[in-house]
């Protein structure tokens, strides 16, 4: 027993020395860079969602050249415990601004904003905010989704388009509906079959879902999940795919046609500039194609002929603000008119969407 105690004592002493060393190592700098933290739901190498955010982080750090230091934690589960712990460890490292980049981080971010009034929090894709230090940001992804729908609608020969989606909630319903309207604008007979994976990041499940869609005769796949799984499945069958979040043509060179993308870097730079200038205030930012936050990648060689011209034409109208995506008449799956002719949905109305439009195969569960 005494020996164990002795060993323990030695351990404590050794650990103590470590602590002492660590404390002494931190140098006192004259001008401390602003530390900005990023909490990611997936690994930065997912080739999609988290990758896109991380590209934004790198862009931010490069832009401010030493005046901004970024830190991140990847693969953080959507639980209070993990998000809170990650944020606390970041604040502990001097973070003054923290971006939480998944919908499921919302409640934790809200609680953290109350607990740390001196730290600025910005949450991606949520609807909560406060008056002092907690804002949110998102964008009109429906614009790029609509355009990618045009590409899919022109490409499909079977008139069956597959759509691998994560969770049946508003953000995804908006995307699926915009995509379907885009496809139907060039191909009246096109239908969109949806499969839910109930996970943001699950390469195997996403690929399985994609394969199931291909087995049903779909020859173009689109996605609202975070990996390249569906595109790879399409590549293996010799059909076509539309990615999401970033250019993943390398993963599926013969299938990849284009992808709706987020240019997070632009937003991160603008926000951090405001923080540095002392003019930052919480807002609910909603980026658009017009301000460059949302984009559609240039079509690849496998995209259908004439699609680029059509996309450019509509995109010009969207940017000019003369082409609201959700303009009636729009019918839901049961054939009920949900948007009357001549009416266009506002942002608030879009975010109340709780239906799938006519031509979408699949339920809300």
């Amino acid at each position, binding site marked *: 027993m005494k020996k164990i105690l002795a060993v323990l004592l030695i351990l404590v002493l050794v650990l103590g020395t470590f602590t002492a*060393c660590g404390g002494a190592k931190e140098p006192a700098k004259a001008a401390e860079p602003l530390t900005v933290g990023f909490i990611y739901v997936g690994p930065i190498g997912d080739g999609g969602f988290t990758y896109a955010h991380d590209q934004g982080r790198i862009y931010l750090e490069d832009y401010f050249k030493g005046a901004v230091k970024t830190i991140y*934690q*990847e693969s953080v589960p959507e*639980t209070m*415990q993990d998000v809170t*712990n990650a944020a606390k460890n970041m604040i*502990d490292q001097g973070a003054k601004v923290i971006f939480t980049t998944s919908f499921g981080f919302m409640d934790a971010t809200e609680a953290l904003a109350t607990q740390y009034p001196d730290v600025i929090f910005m949450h991606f894709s949520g609807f909560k905010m406060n008056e002092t230090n907690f804002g949110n940001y998102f964008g009109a992804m429906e614009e790029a989704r609509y355009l990618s729908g045009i590409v899919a609608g022109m490409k499909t020969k079977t008139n069956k388009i597959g759509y691998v989606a994560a969770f*049946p909630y508003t953000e995804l319903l908006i995307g699926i509906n915009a995509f379907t309207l885009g496809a139907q604008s060039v191909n009246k007979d096109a239908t969109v079959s949806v499969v839910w994976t*109930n996970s943001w990041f699950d390469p195997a499940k996403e690929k399985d879902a994609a394969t199931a869609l291909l087995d049903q005769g779909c020859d173009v796949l689109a996605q609202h999940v975070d990996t390249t799984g569906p595109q790879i499945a399409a590549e293996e069958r010799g059909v076509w795919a539309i990615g999401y979040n970033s250019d993943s043509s390398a993963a599926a060179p013969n299938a990849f046609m284009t992808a709706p993308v987020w240019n997070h870097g632009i937003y991160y730079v603008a926000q951090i500039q405001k923080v540095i200038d002392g003019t930052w205030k919480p807002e609910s930012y909603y980026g658009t194609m017009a301000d460059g936050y949302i984009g559609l990648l240039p079509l690849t060689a496998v995209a259908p002929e004439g699609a680029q011209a059509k996309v450019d034409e509509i995109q010009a109208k969207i940017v000019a603000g003369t082409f609201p995506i959700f303009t009636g008449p729009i019918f839901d799956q049961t054939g009920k008119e949900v948007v009357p002719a001549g009416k266009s949905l506002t942002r608030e109305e879009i*975010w109340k969407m709780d239906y799938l439009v006519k031509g979408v195969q699949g339920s809300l569960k």
Partner: protein
Amino acid sequence: MLRIIKREDVSKRQSILIRFIAILLSLVFSGVFIFILGFNPIEVFGNMVIGALGTEMRIKETIIKAIPLIITSLGILVAFKMKFWNIGGEGQIIMGAFAATYIALNYSDNFSRPVVLILMMLAAMITGGIWAFIPAFFKVKFGTNETIFTLMMNYIALKWVTYLQYGPWKDPNSQGFPKVANFEVNAILPSVFGIHIGWIIAIVLTIIIAIFMNYTKKGYEITVVGESIDTAKYAGMNIKMIVITAMLISGGLCGLTGMIQASAIEKTLTVSLSGGYGFTAIITTWLSNLKAPFVLMTSLAFAVLLQGGSYIQIAMQVPSSVADMIQGMILFFVLGSEFFIRYTIGLKSKEVA
């Protein structure tokens, strides 16, 4: 030629020494891997300790991670003492959290805060206990293998809560996002000295389990069953009852962990709530040599590893898998060392087989 010889009797000191060497070796091997990844292992380990114990905030975070480990380990200890391999801690935690959530969502307004919390605890312990009782029942009745049985029960629990989260219990105010509604204040455990009250529960339970195992008839019976079923039979003990009682306690404690995590940490029910504590607790229990007071130490040590692990990710931008790997290494070496505690390898022995 090498021969494997069963050790006749192993002194306590020897077995502790072997386990200690195992941990040391696991750190050395993890160090090699960390080095290959391009980091300085000494710096990484040093930073882990700093990250877990360096400041008051970090110590609090470490304790928050230690609480579920301690309580779950105590539960697993009771089963392991009987040589009943309860690998189902994870499922028992989830079922406990499920029962607590049922109370929290339906009865928060009906009673005062202490009553709601106590009801949640009772519901969690009973449901966790039932989840452990099922494999125990089949074990005593039909002699099924409890390791496989308890392991599989985890997946049933997981799927059940997944179903609730995506189906009937989905919060209608979450814009369709699959999450269960947040608890009201009445269903949230209070904090004492900046950490939720779970730390007091953990300490009290450690004392209770230590007394229970060492100074009560039931505790003694559990130990005897673990040592030798024949002896227990000869002494006229009701083995079936002992196994079932022990498993009810074991599952009940794991269920309580679920309640604490749901109430104090998540403030709701989610499938990822158990966070692997049910499995990590197997390591901490084993390292404690099945002694309740040591559970406190091993759980704290592992919490240091967990908190240090997430700290180094942010401070040094080390990949998240490094901390998992170190844990895996420790488990591998500690389980491997059991072989050397029971057997010794010698050159050609004089004994004739």
